[in-house]
Structure formats: C-alpha cells, structure tokens
C-alpha cells in the first residue's frame, strides 16, 4: 500500500462533526411549533376563564358583607347580602366528608400496600377502587339518595351530600396512599424490622411518616376537588338562602348549589351572586392547594 492511497482514504472519511442538516432543522422547527401550539391551546382557555371569573367576581367579593351575611330576606333582584351560609355549607360538607374518607382511604391504602400483597381480597379491593374512581358524581349522588333517603328514610341534608362526596373521595385517597407508600423504599422497612420493631409499628412510625407529605397533598387536592362537586348538592340538599348550622336536617346552601339556584334568577343581582360565588369557590380551592403545598414542604423528609 502506497502513501498516496492512504492519503486518499483519509480524505474520503467524513469529518466527525457535521453541521445540522436542513431536514433536521425543519423537524426541530415543526416540533417546537407543535409544542408551543399545544401549550397555547391548553393555557388560553384557562387564563380566559380565570380572567372572566376575576373580572366579574372580584368587585362583588371585596365587600365585608359578602363574607359575613347570608341572602336571608333579600328579594331575588335585590343587591347586597352575602354567601357565608353557602361557604359554611361547602366547608362543612367537605370537611365531614374528609373526616369520614381519610381514615377509610388511608387504611385501605395501607392494607393494599403493606398487607394485601397478591391476595384475592387485595385484587378485589383494587378492582372496586378502580370502578369507584370512574363513578360519575351524579351516580354517587343517586346511590346515596336511594340508600340514605329512599331506603333508610332520612331527609335530604348536608350530611347526605357529605356521604356522596365520601364515595368520590375514598378512591382518590386510596390511590394516593398506595402510590406514596409504594415509593417508600423497602430498605427502610427492613431497617426497622432489623431493630426489632414490629410490623404495625414500622408502618405507623416509619413508613407513613415518610410518605405523609405526599399523602396529605393528595388529601388536600381531593378535598378541593369534591368541594366543587355540583351533582351531589343538587340531588341531596335543598337550597336555603339563610344559614343552617345543622348538617343533619333541613336545607343547606353550598357554593355550587347557590350558583345553580341563582341561574334561574335573571336579574343583575343574580348575575353578581353567581360570579361572586364562583370566585369564592376558586379562592377556597386555591387556599387548600396552597395549604397542601405548605404542608408537604414542612413534612417532606429533609437532608439539611
């Protein structure tokens, strides 16, 4: 082999680094445009909704009366009054629902991850939870109606609403608990067993605290979600323009119920109440989300 041919081969090898080809530039541009397009499609309606809610609702709610009075005694076209009766209903129904759902959901989640394994009961439970997750809120409401009101003979009440919300909240909490417990490494459980700590104590003192921040975030988000549910309040509670502290008896307002009720009120006052209630609901849910963030920050395992 002569030096000449060696030189020739060397020249024939392409350089290691080449400039980006036109086709790749084009594909890159296309993908970038598609991603931005999708982003805009997602964000524009969101901002729009928020903007309208704030624009129409904010002037109504920056008013002490809004938070301290009910609509008791006001005519439908009369301006003024407030919605504290509906805020009370929304919060109390949501919290009672949480008080019932959290222990059930938490324990089911713990069972599925820590004890169930691949047993038949665990599989059946997972299947049920899957189904429950997909149940529309109107079906949950009608189920509670037929059981609690038609079969057991109780009246429509805030508590019946809370029961329907429980059906919607439990599967969410089970799922969150499951996911969060699953990411707790088995090494921590083993470290605890190896210290002679029994299994139940390991779960209560080591595993759940490690997963707690995620579980609480899930609970807060689930709570925010069910507080905006409309079907259960429409089916299971009658609207009242006045405050009713009794969860178990009588009509009880809530923000979604107030909004659907006022929809039949075509006056300017009705319009104001709907948008005011809307932004109030958004504010409450935002507060819960913020609380979830703070709680998870505070509880998250730290390294510093």
């Amino acid at each position, binding site marked *: 082999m002569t030096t000449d041919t060696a030189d020739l081969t060397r020249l024939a090898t392409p350089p290691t680094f080449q400039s980006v080809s036109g086709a790749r530039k084009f594909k890159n541009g296309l993908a970038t445009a598609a991603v931005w397009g999708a982003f805009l499609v997602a964000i524009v309606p969101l901002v729009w909704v928020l903007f309208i809610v704030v624009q129409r609702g904010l002037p109504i709610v920056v008013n002490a009366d809004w938070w301290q009075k009910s609509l008791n005694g006001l005519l439908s076209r009369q301006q003024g009054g407030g919605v504290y009766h509906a805020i009370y209903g929304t919060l109390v129904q949501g919290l009672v629902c949480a008080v019932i759902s959290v222990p059930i959901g938490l324990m089911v989640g713990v069972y599925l991850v820590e004890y169930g*394994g*691949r047993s038949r009961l665990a599989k059946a439970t997972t299947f049920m939870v899957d189904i429950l997750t997909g149940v529309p809120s109107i079906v949950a409401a009608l189920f509670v109606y037929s059981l609690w009101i038609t079969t057991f003979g109780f009246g429509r009440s805030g508590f019946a609403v809370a029961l329907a919300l429980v059906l919607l909240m439990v599967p969410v909490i089970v799922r969150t608990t499951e996911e969060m417990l699953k990411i707790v*490494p088995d*090494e*921590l*459980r*083993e*470290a*605890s*067993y*190896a*210290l*002679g*700590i*029994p299994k139940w*104590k390991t779960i209560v*003192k*080591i595993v759940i*605290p*490690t997963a*707690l921040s995620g579980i609480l975030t899930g609970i807060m988000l689930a709570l925010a979600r069910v507080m905006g549910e409309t079907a259960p309040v429409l089916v299971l509670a009658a609207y009242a323009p006045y405050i009713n502290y009794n969860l178990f008896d009588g009509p009880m307002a809530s923000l979604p119920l107030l909004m659907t009720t006022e929809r039949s009120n075509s006056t300017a006052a009705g319009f104001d109440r709907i948008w005011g209630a809307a932004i109030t609901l958004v504010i409450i849910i935002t507060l819960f989300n913020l609380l979830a963030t703070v709680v998870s920050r505070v509880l998250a*395992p*730290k*390294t*510093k």
Partner: protein
Amino acid sequence: MAKRIDVKELNLYYGKFHAVQEVSIAVPPRNVTAFIGPSGCGKSTVLRSLNRMHEVAPGARVEGSVQLDGEDIYASSVDPVQVRRTIGMVFQRPNPFPTMSIKDNVVAGLRLAGTKNKKQLDEVAERSLRGANLWNEVKDRLDRPGGGLSGGQQQRLCIARAIAVQPDVLLMDEPCSALDPISTLAIEDLITELKKDFTIVIVTHNMQQAARVSDQTAFFNLNGVGQPGRLIEVDDTEKIFSNPSQKATEDYISGRFG
C-alpha cells in the same frame, strides 16, 4: 452480651427456588466471621436467615436450625421480633430513617420499643455514636436530619442505630460496598473494636477486607445459575487465605474465577 451461633443443615428457599443448600456453620462469640463468594451464591440469604429477616420476602421458607447459645431461633414459640432485637443488622446501602434527626435515628429502636426516659435516650445516643466512631463528627448537629450526612457517616449512623438496642450479634451485609476507601477503613477499624462486645458476621465482596477484619472465613459457591448456593468450607481466615483445603476456594481467592 455476645453469643454464639450454630447453624445446622440450613436450607433456604424463595418460593420454589432452592437458594441455599445444607449449610452448617458455627460462629463463636466475640469473633468476626466473614462470608465470601461469588455474587448470587446466597451469602446475603444465609445472613438474613440468622435474624429471621429471610422470611420477610414473600414465599421465603427456612429448613434446618439456627441456634443462638443453644436456643433455636426458629422454634415455633419464638417471636421473630425478639430475635431481631437480639441479632442486629447493617445493610449494604446506608438507610437512615429520612424523617428523623441523627439522634432520633440512633434511638429509634429503643424509642419505638417504648423507652420514653429522655435522659436515658440521650445517654444511649451518645454511647452508641461513640461506639460507632461518629460522635465527634455529629455531636453539634444531633437534631439535624440523618440524610444530610455523607455516605460513610450514614453507614456509621446505621451501625450506631443497630448497636443502640444492645444486640448480642451484629450482622453486616457488605457494609462498605457503597463507600469510598477512607470510609471503608473507618468502618473496618470500627468492626475490630466492636468485636470486643459483639459477635459479628460480615458479608464482603472484598477479599482484602475479609483478610483484614475477620477471624474466620466461610467460602460459599454455587454450581451454576439456578443451582442452590453451598458452603464450600469454613476455617480460620489465615488458613483460608494461605492454604485452603478446597480447590474451589483456592481458585476463587487467587482470582481464577468469580
């Protein structure tokens, strides 16, 4: 107080898989026994059967007996929780409890077993951290999270946590394999010191380490993938490394396989 372990005709299974076959070995008190052998030959499995951690794996089964000072830890009347309190364990990867401070990590075993006396817990924390050669490094930040320590410090924290419950035996599964050489040396020194009070069994991949820290060495091997692991021989460390009686041991130690 340090106790002896006698393993007799131990067979270990994961479901249908026969992982370890017919292991018999005696571990004297105040002594370091090293388990060496190629990956997958069942060293960890045997180690975990010594404090009933084996049965934590789903479907895991044990045949044969393990005696602690003559008492069968697999007798039906024995509570595995009690066994684990008596025979502590340190794992391959440092695993401090992430939600707890350094001090809470150390006293976790005692506190969760019901000790509430704060003074006593403080004393145990200091004694155990000193015992694990970690006290001077962490005494000013006992309330900081354990996860903020370096890998080597975390592993010594785990050792402190294990000795805080005053076990009779300490099992260590490749305690240095995730650590740098300096932390490894620190742990090896510690093992030599702990030997005064504890019976120690250590699994190691590092033959120099086995030679440095152990008094007796057990060599495990397996005939092939899917075959059960077996104990080939166990003898004084010096003898194993200078003049083993089995050909397989010699091949492994001289680096001819594994």
